[in-house]
């Protein structure tokens, strides 16, 4: 409810910016919407764009639920993508085995990557925010290093070779509808994972333990829960989710990873997505599509000469108003009071 209002307010601020920069906001936003809905293939691309965000968002949300702040999705994503592209290219197997191996391999690698932060916290009390920030950079450079190794790097490029057909999860078949847009099973998988995550969190003893540790370590310990084990587990699962995002992105759409000068922001956008989605798995799915839609459709505004930064401003505003949803409560209260006073008189 308030989220809707927040989104409107955010778009409103964007409209103001657009107007003062001398463009027509109505035109701008309709271009944005056209950019998303005017053609099936655009919708397809919006969905493709949103898919990794579902999982990076989940990763952040999950960690939050267990009392941890996972700024490390960025790195976990990179590791997942890297391992996926390696397994996808170097292993040569029939699809039925290749796909699961690539996906699981990448996810597990990322899980371990995430677990490092959990272990450092559990064993040495290293704050996960520091650990994950550092690990993001380490992941980036590790990836760059491996990509540029002999035999891994495709000559004449700064990327790995494309993964084999047998490792791809792109849905062909619909080219006549979505054109070259690479829709893939990852979207479905991501949504299923979201459902599983919410089940684990709220319906299982695993989730009960994780949340208990997140809220009150002492009480959890008193209740017989192994706090350290759960902290590591929480980060491992968060890492797995981040890695899954990277893996599916490669298996479905990207096919290869490239040397990166800086992280691409899937992780940080994931934080925004998680928070817009109020850290609830379902909310995350929705907000991922919202986020993906705005960023993707927003790119279209350039065709009117509107600089891309406006999109960031719009997103920033939306997130800001979601954070301050109480503005709306307050105004509501305020008017209630007004009414009451009138009635009194």
């Amino acid at each position: 409810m308030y989220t809707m209002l927040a989104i409107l307010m955010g778009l409103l601020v964007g409209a103001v910016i657009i107007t003062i920069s001398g463009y027509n906001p109505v035109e701008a936003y309709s271009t944005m919407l056209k950019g998303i809905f005017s053609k099936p293939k655009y919708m397809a691309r919006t969905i493709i764009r949103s898919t990794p965000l579902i999982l990076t968002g989940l990763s952040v949300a999950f960690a939050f639920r267990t009392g941890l702040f996972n700024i490390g999705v960025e790195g976990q994503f990179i590791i997942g993508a890297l391992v996926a592209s390696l397994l996808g290219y170097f292993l040569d197997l029939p699809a039925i085995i290749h796909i699961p191996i690539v996906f699981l391999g990448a996810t597990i690698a990322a899980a371990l990557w995430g677990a490092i932060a959990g272990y450092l916290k559990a064993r040495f009390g290293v704050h996960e925010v520091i650990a994950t920030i550092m690990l993001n950079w380490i992941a980036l450079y590790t990836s760059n290093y491996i990509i540029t190794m002999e035999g891994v790097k495709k000559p004449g490029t700064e990327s790995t070779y494309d993964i084999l057909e047998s490792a791809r999860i792109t849905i062909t078949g619909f080219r006549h509808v979505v054109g070259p847009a690479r829709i893939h099973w990852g979207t479905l998988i991501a949504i299923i994972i979201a459902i599983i995550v919410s089940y684990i969190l709220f319906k299982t003893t695993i989730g009960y333990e994780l949340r208990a540790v997140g809220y009150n370590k002492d009480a959890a310990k008193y209740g017989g829960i192994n706090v350290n084990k759960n902290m590591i587990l929480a980060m491992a699962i968060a890492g797995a989710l981040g890695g899954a995002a990277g893996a599916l992105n490669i298996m479905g759409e990207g096919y290869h990873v490239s040397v990166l000068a800086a992280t691409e922001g899937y992780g940080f956008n994931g934080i925004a997505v998680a928070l817009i989605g109020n850290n609830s798995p379902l909310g995350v799915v929705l907000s991922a599509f919202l986020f993906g839609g705005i960023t993707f459709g927003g790119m279209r505004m350039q065709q009117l000469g509107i600089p891309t930064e406006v999109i960031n401003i719009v997103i920033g505003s939306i997130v800001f108003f979601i954070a301050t949803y109480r503005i709306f409560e307050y105004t509501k209260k305020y008017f209630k009071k007004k009414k009451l006073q009138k009635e009194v008189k």
Partner: protein
Amino acid sequence: MNKEGGIKVSGSKQFNEVVVEMKQIVKKFGDFVANDHIDLTVHKGEVHALLGENGAGKSTLMNILYGLYTPTSGEIHINGKYVDIKNPNIAIENGIGMVHQHFMLVKPFTVAENIVLGMEPTGFANKINMDKATKDVTAISEKYGLHVDPNAKIEDISVGMQQRVEILKALYRGAEILIFDEPTAVLTPQEIKEFIQIIRNLTNEGKSIILITHKLKEIKETSDFCTIIRRGKRIGTVNVEESTEDDLASMMVGREVSFEVEKEERKAKGEVLKVENLVVQDHRGISVVDGLNLSVRAGEILGIAGVDGNGQSELIEAITGLRPSKSGKVLINGNDVTNKTPREVFESGISNIPEDRQKHGLVLDFTVEENMVLENYRKEPFSKGVRIMEEEVNSFAKELMEKFDVRPRNEKNKARALSGGNQQKVIIAREVTNDPDLLIATQPTRGLDVGAIEFVHKSLVEQRDKDKAVLLVSFELDEIMSVSDRIAVIYEGKIVDVVNAKETNENELGLMMAGGGKVEE
């Protein structure tokens, strides 16, 4: 009790100057009415007690008087003139001070820093003049006989000391009207004695005092008048000298309550808990439990009497696996559980009502029902495999809340939203229902109203009558003496002596607790 607060006589004393007058105070939280048109009148030099069940609305009313909560409706007059107490500043300006039930102290700060906070004496460049602060603090603490070490950090001093700091905070701000919210709930008998003396000093200095407590004995000892609140409504105000503890009790609960725990003689059976030469260190690495021996038998309640800080907490934490033991043994029904994990200890048949309800006892952000299965969530019927069976948990919680009268009766509430008293009931319900071989209870009735206390004591005795062992740790001698079969006195980490509850008395125990007893090998 006269509403317009004119002359008021209580035995020898006579009060004529009204300092506080709360009129028709209403406080709603959402649509829950915590205070329902409450009147309260306090005179200069008077000690006015507030009595009521857990969740009756006492703290709320006082938080309103101190400007922490804003009343939904109603008026407050201080020294005869209307005051809109929007925030504590205004309360302070009007000479009101409050000692909160959960202390409002900044743990990493020193005593002096906590006291002067908000009224810091400063020098050049806004620099705090700590010397002056320390002097001032020492000065008032001398004046009222509230001795504290100004430079000690809060986290390192005893609860009693912390309370003195709270009082000094109020006095430092020149409070004339002092509110105490369950001041003695956390104090040892010695500290309580001292506290009562402090109250006297204060009233002699002409201060007025509002005292929230669940301990009728204290009310009789200290108070002139007592206002009783039930479910947010004011039942009445009585002249304490003219009314018995039973009157007060029945007024607040709305029924007769019995104080002495009736339990018939029983023969204790085999040994359930055996502690041998146990050594436990505290966070500073000092052996606060130091070669302690103890044995609890089935069908008996063993009470551990002792002044706070003689190793009780560490002993219990060590037994329950929350704290490592340096050396020695802990045996349950003959098998060794020394340094086992809390779960292993629990499985071996020990349940524990912890001393710190909010730190260990509850996950405050879990719902009441989730808290009800804190140890048993992985067991049938509450879960099958990894799946939690919500219906089971829910009905279980409902049942216990009914049985143990947890209010408000909503298992979906966050534990945080319960009154501390009710939070305690949740824990007791959970632990007693485990039906363990050994039930450990540390300060189980702290902060509970008499009705609740009666109930808790009954539950302990029931356990014992089911031939279970019960280990009770309490700083309140009356409780120890009325509930226990045998009493072990702990002093400096050792059991000084174990006596039969029938064959001892306050003085003997008090003496041993002060270290004046023979150590038995």
